């Protein structure tokens, strides 16, 4: 085992330590602690690159199934259960480590310029460093407890970062919404972990996967419910329908946070969990069993693809378009996992991270440099392509990748998912996939048109007419260029069209299931063919054409009958309103769940209280009063008062004597307490000896 594989625990430990340094000493450092954050992420990047390199070497040297590289130490022990902490490196973990460290490094470089002069500059870097550390902890977790640890660290940091500018009420509310919505899902994770422990009597991920893939469990039903519980956690974390409502609100945080959150950390965690425990889900939910048309993961993923893409059409905030696009792409990943396309889904995590991070950073660059920190595409953007050539080029590269144009990265991952759906007999999800591709192209065309083409408006107008205006500074453009280029080329790691399957070879052993035929086997990735790709590509082209024509008509210079159509046409207006209100899901949660369910319960409780309980209490009261009268007359006045008066006199005397003890001094009371305890102890010792 190589040095890097053995010492992979250093990868999360470095940013973790950097977090402590920044939070303790950051304010006294010349650059406010950001240099420590960036250095630690660079160190993590180098370590992850070494780890990935040694993992690849290990796969290439071996001709059989490659076991994961484990190094573990006992963390704590409860009864017979030992919980370890350490690292579990296999293809999936190595990919994710490299991805997270890489994106985090670029985002930190970008942030040094973007949040310059912020009043909580140091805290920002502390939180974002810990955030990356949390994700890194999670991806190399050898057992469910460490995974939960990383998962929760991320939940906390996302709260801190989304609410970074908490002085505005909307931001702190968005942070709370994100935190609580994800918590709803987290209950599923806790329950799921407990169920896994009950089924497999271990928390080690490797052992769980092996046992699930080999069918070594007693109760299939229990395994299914465990998979459902774990998937609920993934729904919350990855913003899947119906818990996706927190993700767009999370745009309240600074743009670098959005880009990190949406590309490689946090939201990917849910998809990662499904990929990590794939045998549990695959066996538990009967995926790829002959004749199965639907399963939970694919259905949720498919719904998410479509509804999020629909929402992306009506957003005016450029970051919200990207947010819904992320939700939709996460839907693709889930759908891919649901239809048995493990490799394609994980590869989509990989390529999506580059282009989505790039898109967010482009949006930040536009807002930071050109449109006076506004994100409103209709009010403050437009016509920026000439003045911001680097940002524009990066944006176009990433958009091409997101839409899945041939021979850029999205093409190799997304089409692979769609292809697999067709190949594995999930026809419905094949259609969902190509319709989603159409919608993706259409909303990205709209966003691109509004931002970079047409007439400059608002803040952008000032910028465009300013002779000295330049594209953003190098801290911003360097990450953009790197990410933009990767958005173009990263797909070639796994390009079935050229029969290049490196990514598949490196990660194959992480699936945890045999490939091919068999009860518990995952299907092989499909062969590439233009025939199955053509409908998707045709729809992408159609999406581009339709959207471009509509944009020209609605937002272009000329007057057109289409302008303002959503205000005039009843059907379109209803549809538009439905989308603007996010399918009324927020209202549903607020009105139906909170008012509709909680309020009747409390009203019923109130009625019971008033009519039934009070009736009983009143009756008892009446009876009690009558008895009381009798008792008062004879017993109380005669018998008791005599005794009471006597004891009162005694107590008064004793109280007078003890009065000085009540000094009102807390220390005095403490001393008395310990004195009394000491006397009591002494008596005990004397009696017992």
């Amino acid at each position, binding site marked *: 085992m190589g040095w890097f594989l053995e010492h992979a625990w250093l990868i999360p430990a470095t940013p973790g330590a950097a977090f402590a340094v920044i939070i303790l000493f950051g304010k006294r450092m010349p650059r406010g602690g950001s240099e420590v954050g960036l250095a630690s992420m660079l160190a993590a990047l180098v370590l992850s690159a070494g780890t990935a390199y040694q993992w690849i070497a290990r796969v290439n040297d071996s001709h059989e199934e490659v076991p994961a590289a484990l190094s573990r130490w006992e963390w704590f022990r409860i009864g017979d259960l030992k919980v370890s902490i350490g690292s579990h490196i296999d293809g999936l973990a190595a990919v994710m480590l490299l991805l997270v460290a890489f994106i985090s490094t670029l985002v930190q470089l970008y942030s040094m310029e973007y949040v310059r002069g912020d009043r909580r500059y140091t805290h920002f870097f502390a939180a974002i460093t810990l955030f990356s550390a949390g994700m890194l902890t999670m991806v190399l977790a050898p057992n469910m407890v460490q995974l939960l640890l990383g998962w929760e660290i991320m939940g906390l940091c996302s709260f801190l970062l989304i609410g970074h500018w908490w002085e505005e009420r909307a931001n702190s509310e968005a942070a709370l919404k994100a935190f609580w919505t994800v918590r709803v899902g987290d209950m599923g994770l806790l329950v799921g972990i407990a169920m896994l422990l009950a089924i497999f009597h271990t928390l080690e991920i490797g052992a769980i996967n092996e046992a699930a893939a080999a069918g070594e469990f007693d109760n299939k039903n229990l395994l299914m419910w465990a998979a459902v519980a774990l998937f609920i956690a993934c729904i919350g974390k990855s913003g899947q329908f119906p818990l996706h409502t927190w993700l767009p609100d999370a745009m309240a945080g600074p743009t670098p946070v959005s880009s990190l959150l949406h590309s490689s950390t946090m939201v990917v965690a849910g998809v990662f969990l499904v990929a990590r425990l794939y045998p549990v889900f695959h066996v538990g939910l009967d995926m790829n069993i002959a004749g199965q048309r639907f399963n939970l993961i694919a259905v949720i993923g498919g719904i998410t693809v479509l509804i999020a893409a629909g929402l992306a059409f009506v957003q005016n905030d450029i970051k919200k378009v990207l947010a819904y696009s992320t939700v939709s792409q996460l839907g693709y990943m889930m759908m891919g996992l649901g239809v048995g396309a493990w490799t394609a889904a994980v590869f989509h995590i990989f390529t999506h991270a580059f282009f989505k991070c790039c898109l967010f950073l482009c949006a930040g660059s536009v807002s930071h440099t050109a449109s006076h920190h506004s994100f409103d595409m209709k009010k403050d953007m437009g016509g920026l392509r000439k003045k911001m050539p680097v940002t524009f080029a990066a944006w176009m590269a990433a958009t091409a990748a997101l839409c899945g144009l041939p021979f850029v990265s999205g093409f190799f991952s997304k089409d692979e998912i769609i292809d697999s759906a067709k190949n594995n007999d999930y026809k419905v999800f094949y259609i969902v996939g190509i319709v989603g591709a159409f919608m993706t192209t259409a909303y990205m065309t709209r966003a691109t048109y509004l931002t970079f083409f047409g007439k400059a408006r608002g803040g952008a107008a000032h910028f465009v007419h300013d002779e000295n205006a330049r594209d953003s500074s190098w801290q911003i453009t360097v990450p953009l260029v790197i990410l933009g280029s990767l958005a173009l080329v990263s797909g070639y790691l796994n390009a079935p069209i050229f029969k290049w399957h490196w990514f598949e070879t490196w990660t194959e052993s992480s699936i945890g299931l045999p490939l091919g035929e068999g009860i518990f086997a995952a299907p092989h990735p499909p062969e590439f063919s233009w025939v199955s790709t053509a409908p998707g590509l045709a729809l992408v082209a159609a999406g581009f054409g339709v959207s471009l024509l509509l944009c020209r008509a609605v937002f272009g210079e000329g007057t057109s009958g289409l302008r303002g159509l959503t205000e005039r046409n009843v059907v379109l207006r209803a549809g538009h309103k439905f989308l603007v209100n996010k399918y009324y899901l927020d209202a549903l949660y607020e009105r139906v769940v909170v008012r509709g369910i909680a309020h009747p319960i409390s009203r019923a409780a109130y009625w019971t209280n008033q009519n039934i309980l009070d009736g009983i209490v009143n009756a008892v009261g009446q009876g009690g009063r009558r008895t009381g009268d009798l008792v008062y007359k004879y017993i109380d006045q005669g018998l008791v008062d005599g005794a009471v008066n006597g004891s009162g006199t005694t107590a008064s005397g004793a109280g007078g004597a003890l009065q000085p*003890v009540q000094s*009102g*001094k*807390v*220390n005095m009371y403490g001393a008395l307490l*310990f004195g009394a305890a000491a006397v009591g102890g002494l008596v005990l010792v004397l009696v017992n000896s």
Partner: protein
Amino acid sequence: MLINEFLLLGAVLFCIGVYGVIARKNAVLVLMSIELILNSVNINLLAFDRLHAVDTAGGNDGSVFALYIIAVAAAEVGVGLAMVLLIFRNRKTISLDDLSEMKG
């Protein structure tokens, strides 16, 4: 297994705690001293738990008790600090000498 070192450590912590409760005038320091006392008890419980586990190869009762105490202590400090905070807000001091309205 010898546990006298543990018990000695527990006793020393306990004494430091008692000293703090009796001698300190600052409410926060008194709360901290109470924590010390509770933790000295925890050390004793754990020490006896180990001893017991070696003898009879059973139970973790001591550890469980210690966990309970930690939880209860956390709750206690929560309430205590809240009181201190309110006192500070109302009087701008947390010196215990000034809090003698309960004098009989």
